[in-house]
């Protein structure tokens, strides 16, 4: 098949799924935090508030596109564009699965948009340029809170990029490649007969330290609690995006969630074996998980109905989930669905971690955060890198 056509189809598919996923990530976040906080969360629009992202999008699209009189117009408009563009580009180098044959055709393709031989550097570069979005937004808004937020954000992102990059270097040393696909392929080794050789399982757990450093820096890099100082609502109102409204605000919002998703994908690929399951012989699990949850929903939606308003939605979702489960068991589809399942479930778990932490922890102070970056994260990450390098040199 024509390379161009295939790429276009894949790009369209990934873009659609990614953008929808971002919208629903926000729904998931609101629901999870609501349940942590003994609330219900969005439940007005659609069953269980499932149409909330749609209405939010419509609201943001139709709001007045306000440009305050005192802003530097060019940079004010440029900032959200840079932010959202840089956040969305990184997904193009993320591989979601191995090479597959499209069912009922002879087309062979990779799951994932593209594979660069410097793939790992692309998200780093993008987040590096993404700092400009925040700094420019803070500066061009001509607002004191925004300026403080922008300054905090740039300093924080620049500082945490360093340990982040050093933490990434550890798996690069181990797998001797910058291509994400090759990194995952080199983890595709079964050791001791039952465990896939994910990066965090090898070299006496030294890469696990790098993984933790990576996660912490990822929190800081995406400005999330406990490192959400740039937009610390209780100090700086809304931080660097105080003066932004409607779609320009939505762009920053989307950028934050896109960055979160990409960095979680990156963590999964570098440390958690990408689309590989934990142990071999688990091909029946994806279908079973969906089928079991479908059956559970059917049970609670029909036989053991707790709330009357769930009498339609729960059986419906039960049937849908059972259907998805069955799809995972169809032999033709299995080479596609199984890797996707493992990849997405690991990513979702990390995203859940993000949300969980947000609901639990207070935030750092600015100087403590910088001290944490330079006094702890950086030395530890350097140490991890040396240890990994030493082990790799001895072993290989």
């Amino acid at each position, binding site marked *: 098949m024509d390379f161009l056509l295939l790429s276009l189809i894949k790009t369209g598919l990934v873009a659609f799924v990614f953008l929808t996923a971002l919208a629903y990530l926000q729904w998931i976040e609101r629901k999870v935090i609501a349940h942590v*906080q003994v609330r219900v969360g969005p439940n007005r629009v659609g069953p269980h508030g499932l149409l909330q992202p749609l209405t939010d999008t419509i609201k943001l699209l139709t709001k007045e596109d306000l440009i305050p009189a005192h802003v530097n117009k060019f940079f004010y408009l440029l900032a959200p564009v840079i932010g959202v563009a840089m956040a969305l580009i990184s997904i193009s180098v993320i591989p979601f699965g191995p090479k597959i044959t499209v069912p009922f055709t002879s087309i062979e393709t990779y799951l994932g948009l593209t594979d660069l031989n410097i793939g790992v550097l692309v998200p780093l570069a993008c987040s590096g340029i993404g700092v400009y979005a925040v700094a420019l937004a803070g500066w061009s808004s001509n607002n*004191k809170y925004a300026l403080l937020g922008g300054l905090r954000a740039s300093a924080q992102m620049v500082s945490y990029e360093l340990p982040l990059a050093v933490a990434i270097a550890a798996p690069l040393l181990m797998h001797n490649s910058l291509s994400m696909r090759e990194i995952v392929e080199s983890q595709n080794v079964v050791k001791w007969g039952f465990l896939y050789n994910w990066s965090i399982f090898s070299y006496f757990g030294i890469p696990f330290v790098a993984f933790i450093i990576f996660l912490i820096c990822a929190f800081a890099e995406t400005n999330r609690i406990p490192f*959400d*100082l740039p937009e610390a609502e*209780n100090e700086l109102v809304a931080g660097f995006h105080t003066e932004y409204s409607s779609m320009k605000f939505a762009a920053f919002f989307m950028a934050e969630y896109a960055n979160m998703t990409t960095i979680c994908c990156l963590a999964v690929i570098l440390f958690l074996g990408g689309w590989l399951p934990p142990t071999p012989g688990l091909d029946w699990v994806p279908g079973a998980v969906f089928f079991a949850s479908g059956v559970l929903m059917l049970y609670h939606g029909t036989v053991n109905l707790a709330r009357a308003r769930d009498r339609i939605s729960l059986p419906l979702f039960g049937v849908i989930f059972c259907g998805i489960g069955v799809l995972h068991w169809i032999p033709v589809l299995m080479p596609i669905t199984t890797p996707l399942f493992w990849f997405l479930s690991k990513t979702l778990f990390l995203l859940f971690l993000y949300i969980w932490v947000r609901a639990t922890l207070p935030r*750092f102070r*600015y100087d403590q955060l910088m001290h944490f970056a330079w006094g702890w994260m950086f030395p530890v990450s350097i140490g991890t890198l040396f240890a990994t390098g030493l082990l790799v040199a001895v072993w290989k």
Partner: protein
Amino acid sequence: MAAGTLEHTPTAAAEPSRRRTMTLNMGPQHPSTHGVLRVVLDLDGEVILKAVADIGFLHTGIEKQCETKTWQQVVPLTDRVDYLSNLANNLAYCLAVERLLQLEIPPRAQYLRVMLTELSRIASHLVWLGTHALDIGAMSMFMYCFREREDILKILEMFSGQRMMTSYLRIGGVALDAPRGWEKVVGKFLSEFPSRIDMYENLLTGNPIWTIRTKGVGYMSLEDLLDWGVTGPMIRAAGLKWDIRKDEPYSGYDKFDFEVPTRTESDVFARYQVRIEELRQSHKIAKQALDGMPPGPFQADAPKILLPEREKMKTEMEALICHFKIVTEGFSVPAGEAYACVEAPRGELGYYVVSDGTTKPYRVHMRTPSFANLQILAPMLENTLIADSIAALGSMDFVLGDTDR
């Protein structure tokens, strides 16, 4: 407007080098000023060089309004002074007027007053804890605290018919006797509450981020606090064991067994610990009041001050006359002046009432803890970071209604 009277001079002039500072106007609309407080900050980067508090945005003239109401009608006004601990305000006012009238309050009324005041202290501290934690970024605490506060508001509603502006206290007692089944509801809340405090402590006390954000922040020496007239948990966190419930017992507090928690660090964390411990002590007092609630009348025997029973009013001439007089013109209070103070959640809350012998107060003055405590804002915030100022502001636990009245 107030801005003209602020005398806000940039501190840059005082510096030897020509340092450029940024003036940041925090409030009156700001998520962390807990109401309409305006703080003008002189910033060098993120360091606050000078802070000026601008109050008065919530000024309602309650003190002056009191002079136009009859003695009993003032009680609903006192609700609105510190709307988070309205019962303490009711109590202080009633105590002052009762001192002028020399009324003897029956034990049941005293126990009801103590129990509900302590419950409202818990509710007030819960609002403080929730918003304070929210300011520092722990957003779930807010919801947990408000869940428990909701239980207390339901109890208050059960007793008085109102959730917040209860006006439950009357001069000479309480408005109504305890409703049917109150022991069960209050008992259920009190039996659950200690485990909830443990949960708050689990989330915050040992949390390393919480401790580094609060320890050593917002320090003020005990001498300074005394000079500024600060009272309540803030001064107890500086080491002074001063609690009016213990030192000048009122409303039968001497019959209750409780501790006055103190710390010596005088920082945000110490204030946090003191208030958390006060939650436990208030729970202890309320529990004792619940267990030892005496039977008997809930209002003093003063037919010319308190409305007679409905049945008596219909059958007895004397009662009908009293009812008519109280409803139409109120009761008169002997000329004189009285000051009564209580330990409100925020500190010493005093009511100074002056009577000229008529049915309306000549003057009511409130010594509100928020106003006195807020004075230390400027010295406390100097040379701190913006983030610390938010933590320090939260630890002061002021209510703007209480400040501006």
